[in-house]
């Protein structure tokens, strides 16, 4: 009895560790960006409203829709709903009004994805997307890699990022489990309906040939499947590899080493199905590519490849809420750690020793920066120097050198700087 209790406790602890092992917010936030961004681009030109114009004779409701006596909405309503959905996908991706965006993306997406299933054939390309969107809608995926986070950093510059928490683990693990059950379910289904015969027979060969008879939603991309079908042993080996991968995929949940083999294997299999047989599992590729990699580790390793030299030093007025907020935003964007910041009020003695030509008054009047080449720039030009070293700034660089932007940038900077001197700059709470 005692052993049973101990085993139950051990299992319970393992269960809690699996779902709630503390992790930082970065990986989940990055997954959110990639997932919703990927969905946005995948479905940008998809017109769901066409289902609203199909004759009722085609309407074959699935259990969920038939049971609730739901019907297809008018085409114009579906058109409006899909605009709302695509907008919510974009908002959820960039992280603006993220919680609301993810919730709307889930509800509207669930309806739109379910709609097409009521016309004779249920496809398996999208159900796990609904589950993934549902999990993310309840998560704290907005705590990193989002405009909301930047706005929060601006409002409360003294607050740093959130500490590691299980809140950033369970949504990713939930998607892992959902994906795993897709593979395992497919494997079990083959064993149940065909057993080892699925591998030992010419089933794979037949499927490879049948694919060229317009069998799937789209046709194969190349004719290599027919060449493969010429080799029964190769076709059987493919079948065996597919079945083995499906049945062992559960190991990816618990073993990092197995993940290194099984996840790329699954991605290869899904891509192979598209190329050789036709079915479009692009959504499945997206979910696998987005949720399995440990993005924080990937980011750290990539950043380590970049020479860790200081590129820009910024001198800012730490007693000014606008300046402190702007620097908090830059700190969040400084993924390569190429920016160092000195508060003119707090760190003054250190500044003239580094740049003797600067006076305290100059630094309090305008933000100054020293570039890697030693050039001292100020105001708008200081922000432009930051754009060169902050990755997100790279996309702005062409814009910042458009004729006229220089003039406009200087005027805008001066207008804001003048405004802060008219006591418009209030130090945020927690800074005083």
């Amino acid at each position, binding site marked *: 009895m005692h052993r049973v209790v101990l085993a139950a406790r051990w299992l319970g602890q393992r269960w809690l560790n699996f779902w709630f092992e503390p992790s930082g917010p970065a990986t989940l936030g990055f997954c959110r960006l990639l997932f919703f961004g990927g969905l946005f681009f995948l479905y940008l030109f998809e017109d769901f409203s066409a*289902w609203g114009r*199909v004759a009722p004779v*085609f309407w074959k409701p699935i259990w969920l829709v038939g049971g609730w006596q739901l019907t297809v909405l008018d085409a114009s309503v579906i058109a409006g709903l899909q605009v709302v959905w695509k907008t919510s996908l974009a908002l959820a991706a960039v992280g603006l009004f993220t919680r609301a965006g993810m919730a709307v993306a889930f509800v509207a997406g669930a309806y739109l994805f379910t709609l097409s299933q009521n016309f004779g054939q249920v496809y398996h390309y999208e159900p796990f997307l609904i589950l993934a969107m549902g999990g993310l809608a309840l998560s704290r995926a907005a705590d990193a890699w989002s405009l909301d986070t930047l706005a929060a950093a601006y409002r409360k510059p003294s607050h*740093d990022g959130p500490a590691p928490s299980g809140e950033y683990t369970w949504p990713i693990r939930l998607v892992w489990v959902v994906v795993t059950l897709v593979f395992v379910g497919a494997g079990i*289904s083959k064993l149940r309906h065909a057993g080892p015969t699925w591998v030992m027979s010419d*089933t794979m060969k037949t499927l490879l*040939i049948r694919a060229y008879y317009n069998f799937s939603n789209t046709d194969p991309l190349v004719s290599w499947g*027919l060449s493969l079908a010429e080799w029964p042993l190769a076709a059987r080996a493919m079948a065996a590899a597919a079945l083995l991968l499906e049945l062992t995929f559960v190991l990816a949940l618990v073993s990092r080493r197995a993940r290194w083999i099984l996840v790329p294997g699954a991605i290869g299999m899904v891509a192979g199905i598209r190329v050789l047989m036709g079915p479009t599992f692009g959504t499945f590729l997206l979910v696998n590519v987005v949720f399995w990699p440990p993005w924080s580790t990937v980011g750290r390793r990539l950043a380590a490849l970049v020479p860790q030299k200081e590129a820009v030093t910024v001198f800012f007025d730490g007693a000014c809420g606008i300046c402190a907020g702007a620097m908090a935003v830059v700190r969040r964007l400084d993924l390569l750690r190429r920016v160092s910041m000195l508060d003119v009020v707090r760190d003054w003695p250190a500044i003239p020793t580094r740049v003797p030509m600067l006076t305290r008054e100059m630094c309090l009047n305008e933000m100054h920066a020293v570039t890697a080449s030693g050039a001292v720039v100020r105001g708008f030009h200081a922000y432009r120097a930051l754009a060169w070293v902050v990755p997100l700034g790279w996309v702005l660089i062409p814009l910042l050198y458009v004729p006229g932007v220089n003039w406009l940038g200087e005027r805008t900077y001066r207008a804001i700087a003048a405004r802060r001197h008219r006591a418009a700059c209030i130090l945020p709470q927690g800074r005083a």
Partner: protein
Amino acid sequence: MTGSGTRPSHAVSITRARRWLVHAVIVLFVGGQLYAIVRARDYWPFSNYGMFSYVDESQTHNALRLFRIRGSEELPLLAFDHLRPFDQARITTVLELIKDSDPSGSKVRAALRDIWVRYEEGRQAGRHRGPLVDGVRLYTVEWKLDPFARNVSAPEQRDLLAEFRPHSDRLSR
């Protein structure tokens, strides 16, 4: 935007209620998926993912096929742009269901009419470059599987099931 340059400061705790909510979601999602696998059925959005699960060594391929009629010519009707929002697989499956549920054939004719109407609307709106067609025909088609799929456009057997022409629609059985 990660805050990689910052020091973590405030803890994000999971309250008891929140933990229950998360567990409820886990149980719903995982339980639903497991139930579909055990029952070997689809309960959208849960599924047993049973596609391609059966032994298939048949040397023939049977399917319904749509054709556009243009004068004495027949052109396959398979492209997504022509069938939108259906694709070539879903239209075949749903026509099969309609055919099986309606021995009189009137529903099949209504379906063909709708297919023709949407084809024409798409053509007139410039959504596809297909030609103006006189009508639509539905065949049951059988192929002997060829290792190089050389007979895709020339099936061994073809039986007319139904035809729709906008001005003189009739049903052939």
